[in-house]
């Protein structure tokens, strides 16, 4: 066996003055980075196994541990960065494609951070959310061109709508890619807060059926877990065409993650690989999509809105126009920062476009075509905080999807090792020793806390802008100004530069 | 209304506490021939061994009687009972009337006839007064003979070893603690005794106690003689039914009671070592002379005296006895009989021995030596008649615990009583 050229990415620092050798770290590291030396009666660590997930650091009762980047330097080279070199070592060693988890971590511009919000001064009053009602309720679904009212009553019922207490939903994450406890946590939080969570393509576990009112069931290319009951079980159906982290790429849940429960939920044999093809093999064109949309509507008696989720790619505006005209009630646009349980690194880091630009382009395009009311737009792909949401809504989104933020709320420390199945936080794993680390009681509470906090913040920001209902912000791009953006970017975003 | 309790040990205290759960006010009178505040009988060996003090031998705190509104007549012997008049007759002839009476007179030593019993320096090993006498002669370097290698005899041995007394223990049977230990277990215990310098003579009896006014030795059945400075007789005990001898109160070996601890005479109860309670493993009424049993019987009697309706029908033998640092716990059946299978786990390197007696799907008895942790879980299986078939294989394993149980049973036990 030849030597592995890879050196540890991190170093584990154990303060011996603080360590009490209680072995909590040993018991908690699924990567076996810590062990107890029986001979010396003390805990020791192996840096090479550490993925920097912070599980041990957080649980260490004496705060004896910290993890640092390995200070080992390569000869300085602006082109051949340590990352580039390490990746080559890895591939030369394994012969495999590079895999990664979570969203694109490359230093591309983050447009949210180049957009600033307005606030009222003198000429109109800001509104104090502590004194005045401040409304975040949002309806997703096709809106009629106009209402017909007869004798003071609605003459024609609205098409089916999703009613959200705030314009945020938990984005699609399948049972399989994440643990059932993680799914349940989101389902519980969604039902508590009055929003939606999304099954992803993993089917709907029987224990979660009771959260149907707050569930979007997804139909993806693998069609896992899809049957009439499934379609009926949720409040809406989402056709997943693509995912921001890996546009144009399918999915692959390895057989070892397909245990009894995943198998039953996905309706596939235990231990079989769950492969989602890159395209839906019954959708090779827009008219095929239309057929699927209407098949699903037929199957559910036109009682549930149908969403179509796509990755933000170059031609996103035209594609969304097509999707709207194909009968979708909701379009979810997933930007390139969106997370994933597993994706080829090269795809994740190089394919797709920023969701901010995609969203602005789509909203403008649909308005130009006069069909913006026919669909609701959901912005996904690395919404990090309430300000991102406010900016997304002002750019034109009806609501946003959050996933990475939700996972972080539940404990994810963004080590990006989801694909290993050894998530020490019990999220991206099916190992029963690990999944129980995610207590749905706690995680759902944390999720609800996050949403409540964000709701408060959104209300503050709205109030500052003199707005007391979120819909008055939607597409209200005058509330935005750009900083550090080119004219071209400002134009695409449809916003002015700060100072204008 | 008044409650009278004859006796001042475990069953009596259980009765006081049982009464006071339902009735805070009716006066209680305790009559005992021992002059002491209630103390723990088994602690006499620890007292003798220097492991506890007189103060720490109190079974309940000094203010127990006061707090529970109990009038005590200590050092007063109850001679007999006039069941017709419902009065207890004391040694001095005075009479104590009762509405309800509990007889908790315990046990008395059983001493088979042997020559020379009248000499000095021959002791029983039951009461505090016994060890108060023994401690005077059991000085370091003295030699003692203990007759009887059962529970109390061996506790006496232990105490004497702690005092630096050279001890020889004699038993008629072929192994020590014959009713509890099997050969393997006995050999483990024997080794511990030997390690402490105790000589054990089995299969023999004392024919005659030697000496003048004072005992100086014994003559054994085989004709050999042993010299000693004093002798402790710990051959066994019998129910102390003296007070009701010849009355209409029904007795066998002990006083016959039902599962509410009532005797055949209305308003008269019996509990503790004097009573023949129900042994639910043996499915018969018999004396079960152990503390937990005495307490529960007393408590049951007390509750019923106070007007509640309480039943105690889960009595069975169980004992825990660390001997010279070697823990020994046993419960329930301790001999192989028809219909009972046995499982043993012997780990010589750990000096650990575990033996389980299984009848059908139930555990009916066990013996643990050295590794006694979590023994009570096994006890509960016996008591609850738990179906152990699903986890029988794991009995006695090092990590045996609730984790070994089927999930439903485990959760039932662990979450018991939760208000959801």
């Amino acid at each position, binding site marked *: 066996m030849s030597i592995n050229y890879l050196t540890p990415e991190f170093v584990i620092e154990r303060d011996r*003055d*603080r360590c*009490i*050798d*209680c*072995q*909590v770290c040993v*018991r*908690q590291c699924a990567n076996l980075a810590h062990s107890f030396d029986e001979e010396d009666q003390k805990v020791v660590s192996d840096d090479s196994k550490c993925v920097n997930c912070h599980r041990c650091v957080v*649980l260490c*009762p*004496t705060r004896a541990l910290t993890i640092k980047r390995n200070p080992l330097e390569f000869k300085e080279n602006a082109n051949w960065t340590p990352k580039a070199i390490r990746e080559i070592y890895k591939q030369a060693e394994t012969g495999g494609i590079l895999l990664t988890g979570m969203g694109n971590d490359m230093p591309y511009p983050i447009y949210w951070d180049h957009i600033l919000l307005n606030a009222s001064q003198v000429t109109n009053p800001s509104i104090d959310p502590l004194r005045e009602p401040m409304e975040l309720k949002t309806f997703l679904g096709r809106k009629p061109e106009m209402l017909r009212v007869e004798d003071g009553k609605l003459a024609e019922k609205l098409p089916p709508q999703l009613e959200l207490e705030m314009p945020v939903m938990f984005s699609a994450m399948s049972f399989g890619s994440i643990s059932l406890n993680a799914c349940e946590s989101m389902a519980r939080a969604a039902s508590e807060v009055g929003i939606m969570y999304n099954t992803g393509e993993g089917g709907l576990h029987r224990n979660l059926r009771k959260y149907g009112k707050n569930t979007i069931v997804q139909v993806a290319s693998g069609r896992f877990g899809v049957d009439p009951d499934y379609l009926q079980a949720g409040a809406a159906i989402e056709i997943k065409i693509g995912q921001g982290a890996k546009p144009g790429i399918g999915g692959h849940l390895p057989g070892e993650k397909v245990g009894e429960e995943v198998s039953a939920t996905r309706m596939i044999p235990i231990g079989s690989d769950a492969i989602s093809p890159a395209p839906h093999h019954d959708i090779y064109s827009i008219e095929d999509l239309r057929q699927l949309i209407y098949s699903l509507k037929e199957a559910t008696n036109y009682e549930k809105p149908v969403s179509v989720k796509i990755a933000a790619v170059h031609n996103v505006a035209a594609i969304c126009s097509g999707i709207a005209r194909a009968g979708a009630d909701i379009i979810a646009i997933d930007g390139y920062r969106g997370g994933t349980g597993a994706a080829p690194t090269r795809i994740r880091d190089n394919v797709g476009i920023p969701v901010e630009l995609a969203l602005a382009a789509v909203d403008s395009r649909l308005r130009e075509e006069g069909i913006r009311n026919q669909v609701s737009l959901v912005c996904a792909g690395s919404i990090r905080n309430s300000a991102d949401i406010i900016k997304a809504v002002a750019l034109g989104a009806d609501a946003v999807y959050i996933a990475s933020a939700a996972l972080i709320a539940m404990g994810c420390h963004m080590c990006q090792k989801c694909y290993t199945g050894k998530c020490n936080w*019990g999220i991206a794993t099916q190992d*029963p*020793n690990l999944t*129980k*680390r995610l*207590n749905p009681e*706690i995680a759902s509470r944390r999720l609800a806390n996050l949403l409540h906090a964000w709701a408060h913040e959104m209300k503050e920001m709205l109030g500052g802008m003199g707005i007391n209902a979120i819909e008055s912000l939607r597409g209200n791009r005058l509330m935005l100004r750009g900083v550090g953006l080119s004219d071209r970017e400002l134009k695409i975003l449809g916003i002015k530069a700060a100072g204008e | 209304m008044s409650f009278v309790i004859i006796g001042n040990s475990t069953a009596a205290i259980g009765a006081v506490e049982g009464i006071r759960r*339902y009735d805070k006010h009716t006066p209680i009178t305790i009559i005992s021939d021992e002059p002491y505040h209630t103390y*723990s009988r088994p*602690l006499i060996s620890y007292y003798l061994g220097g492991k506890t003090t007189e103060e720490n031998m*109190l079974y*309940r705190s000094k203010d127990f009687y006061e707090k529970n509104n109990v009038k005590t007549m200590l050092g007063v012997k109850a001679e007999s009972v006039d069941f017709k008049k419902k009065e207890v007759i004391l040694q001095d002839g005075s009479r104590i009337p009762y509405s309800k009476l509990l007889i908790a007179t315990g046990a008395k030593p059983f001493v088979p006839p042997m020559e020379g019993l009248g000499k000095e320096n021959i002791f029983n090993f039951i009461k505090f007064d016994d060890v108060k006498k023994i401690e005077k002669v059991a000085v370091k370097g003295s030699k003692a003979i203990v007759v009887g290698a059962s529970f109390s005899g061996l506790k006496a041995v232990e105490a004497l070893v702690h005092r630096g007394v050279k001890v020889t223990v004699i038993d008629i049977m072929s192994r020590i603690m014959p009713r509890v230990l099997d050969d393997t277990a006995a050999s483990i215990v024997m080794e511990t005794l030997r390690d402490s310098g105790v000589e054990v003579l089995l299969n023999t009896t004392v024919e005659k106690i030697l000496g003048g006014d004072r005992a100086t030795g014994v003559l054994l059945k085989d004709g050999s003689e042993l010299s000693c400075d004093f002798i402790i007789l710990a051959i066994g005990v019998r129910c102390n039914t003296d007070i009701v001898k010849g009355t209409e109160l029904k007795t066998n070996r002990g006083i016959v009671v039902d599962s509410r601890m009532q005797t055949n005479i209305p308003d008269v109860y019996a509990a503790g070592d004097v009573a023949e309670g129900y042994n639910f493993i043996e499915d018969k009424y018999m004396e079960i002379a152990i*503390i*937990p049993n005495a307490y529960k019987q007393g408590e049951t009697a007390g509750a019923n005296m*106070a*007007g509640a*309706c*309480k*039943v*105690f*029908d*889960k*009595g069975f033998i*169980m004992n*825990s006895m*660390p001997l010279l640092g070697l*823990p020994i*716990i046993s*419960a329930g059946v301790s001999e192989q009989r028809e219909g009972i299978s046995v499982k043993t786990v012997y780990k010589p390197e750990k000096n650990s021995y575990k033996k389980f007696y299984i009848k059908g799907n139930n555990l009916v008895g066990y013996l643990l030596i050295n590794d*006694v*942790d*979590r*023994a*009570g*879980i096994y*006890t*509960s299986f016996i*008591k*609850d008649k738990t179906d152990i078939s699903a986890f029988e294989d794991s009995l006695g394993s090092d990590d045996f*615990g609730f*984790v*070994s149980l089927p999930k439903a049973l485990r*959760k039932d036990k*662990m979450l*018991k*009583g*939760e*208000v959801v």
Partner: protein
Amino acid sequence: MDRIPDSAKRKRVYAREEVCVGCRLCEVYCIAAHSSYKNDLIKAFKRSYIRPVPRIVVEERKPISFGLQCRHCEEPECVKGCITGAMQQDPETGIVTNDEARCIGCWTCILACPYGVIMRDYREKKVAAKCDFCIENGGEPACVKNCPNEALYIGDVRESCDDAEGGPDK
């Protein structure tokens, strides 16, 4: 006839095995809470000449694990079986504690406890060690307080949940 009720609501530490992560922090904190450095883990572990025994049993057979400690039974077998009177139940709180000064380590309580949660403590003289609900530390058990995943919690206990032999009072 009714039993005179206890004045206080009984509480008990329950375990949710579904979310026990097997870290044994409950043990770690229990040890510290019963050491002479109640609020300093490092000193409790590094300075205590002999480490106290944990009063919680962590059972583990992967993937199942859970902590288990004294149930403070309504009808405590350990109290009834105790030969010295050291094991006592507070009539107000229902909490069962062992007076270690009086305990002589006969292990009858270990024999009696149906949950197997009384430990042998050989640190000085041998005594039975058991959960005392951290009454000396304000009654918030350290195991519950420091369980990182809320796998231990304090629950209210129903009256008459622990059947005495022969069932509850009739």
